[in-house]
Structures are given as C-alpha cells and as structure tokens.
C-alpha cells in the first residue's frame, strides 16, 4: 500500500525513514525491506517513524521482528518517534522498554 521508505547512512547507522500508513496491508513490505538490510550486514539500524500517519499492531510486530534480527547479528535498533499518537502505542504495549524511542534523529544516532 501507500508506504514509502528512504534509506541513508548517518554516523555509522543505517537510517530507514518510513512514510505513510503502517498497517497489516503495508507491514509485510516493510518487513521485507528490513530483512534485506540486515542480510546486507546493516545491523545498526534506526527506524524513523516521524513520517508514519498510522501504526497498527502488525507495524509494532514488524519492529519487534527487526529488533530480534539485529540483536541476533550483534547489532542494535533505535527508533525515532516524536509523535505522541504513535509513541503512545509503544508505551501501552510496553515495547518502549524493549526499544527506546528518541524524539530526534540526532539523538538516535548519538552516543555510539
């Protein structure tokens, strides 16, 4: 569906910016793209969710999957999420304890 992703490299991190609605229709597509990044050895990932208009449980699940995959390869995952509407979903599912949310990209790529 209407999902667009941009990939860039910043300060040793691979940043995937996601734009559009991240729901059960579009999450499989994002999942594939994240699997591809990890397969290319890009295991220090930042997912920037500030362009996401809607997030559902499969979107959250896709992020859990990415976290598992980068960790398996000794990497790490960080999230950029300054929209409270979206951050709220991580909070109520407790997932903000597994992947901390940063409110800016700068903060996400800072500190190693």
């Amino acid at each position, binding site marked *: 569906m209407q999902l667009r992703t941009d990939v860039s490299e910043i300060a040793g991190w691979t940043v995937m910016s996601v734009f559009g609605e991240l729901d059960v229709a579009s999450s499989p597509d994002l999942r594939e793209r994240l699997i591809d990044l990890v397969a290319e050895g890009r295991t220090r990932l930042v997912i920037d969710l500030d362009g996401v208009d809607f997030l559902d449980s499969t979107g959250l699940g896709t992020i859990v999957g990415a976290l598992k995959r980068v960790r398996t390869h000794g990497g790490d995952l960080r999230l950029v999420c300054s929209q409270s509407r979206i951050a709220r979903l991580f909070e109520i599912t*407790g997932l903000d304890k597994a992947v901390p949310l940063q409110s800016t990209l700068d903060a996400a790529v800072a500190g190693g």
Partner: protein
Amino acid sequence: MAVVELAIPARSAYLSLIRLVVDAAVAALAPGLGGARLDDLKIAVSEACANAIEAHQGTYVEEPVVVRCIVEEERVTVEVVDRGAGFDPDRLERLPPATDPRRLRHESGLGIPLMRTLADEVAFRRTLDGTTVALTVYRARS
C-alpha cells in the same frame, strides 16, 4: 441514535478506507468525541477489521466484512461483523512482558491487547455465522 454501516471486501488493502470512513462518520455524528479518543477508536477498529478480514481468507474471501458505527448520546460503538470460523478470546496465548528477552519471539498477537486498552469496552460475540466485535468509547470519559 445514528447508525452508519459499511460493507467492504475482505482484503487488507481496504483497511485504510475503513479508517477513513470511521473517522468521517464519527466526526460527523459525534463531533464531541475528541481527536485523541477518535484516534484510539480508529486503531481499535482497524485491529478488529484486520482480524475479521483475516478470518474471511479462504472460504469467505468473497464475503464482505461489515463495520457499523452506532452513535448514541453518551457513547460511540463500532461493531465489526465477520463470517469467519470464530475463536475463543479467553484462550489466546499471553505475551511475555516487554522486558523478557523471549518477548522478541512474538511478532504478532498485539491486536486484541491493543483493542482492550484503547477502547473503553470490548465485547466479542459469537454469532450464528461468525464473530461480532463491539468496540465502545464513552464520550465523557477520557
């Protein structure tokens, strides 16, 4: 009481349209319901519809899923009606807490927990030919 009903193909590509209609219907019928509560309801409805659509895959893929917005004085209820095989909501696997490393084994199973948190009331009704999920948000409560 005002009722707006939408019948829509059982494909996930239509979820976006369902959200848009719920948004517009509730905004038109229940202008009092604040933006954040409407957002919550929309996510809960989207989750219920995703499950309903999933339940139609296979035998009932050609049957529409029905979304009914019922606006009353004090509350808004959205019913999601499917003709799938049904399930027992009390027998779902519980997810480990987010701080448990085993949590990462589960990429799914967050839909119903989200519905339960986001809506004020969630009722799963087994019907003669499927499941009806009723999601209610009260207008005054937060």
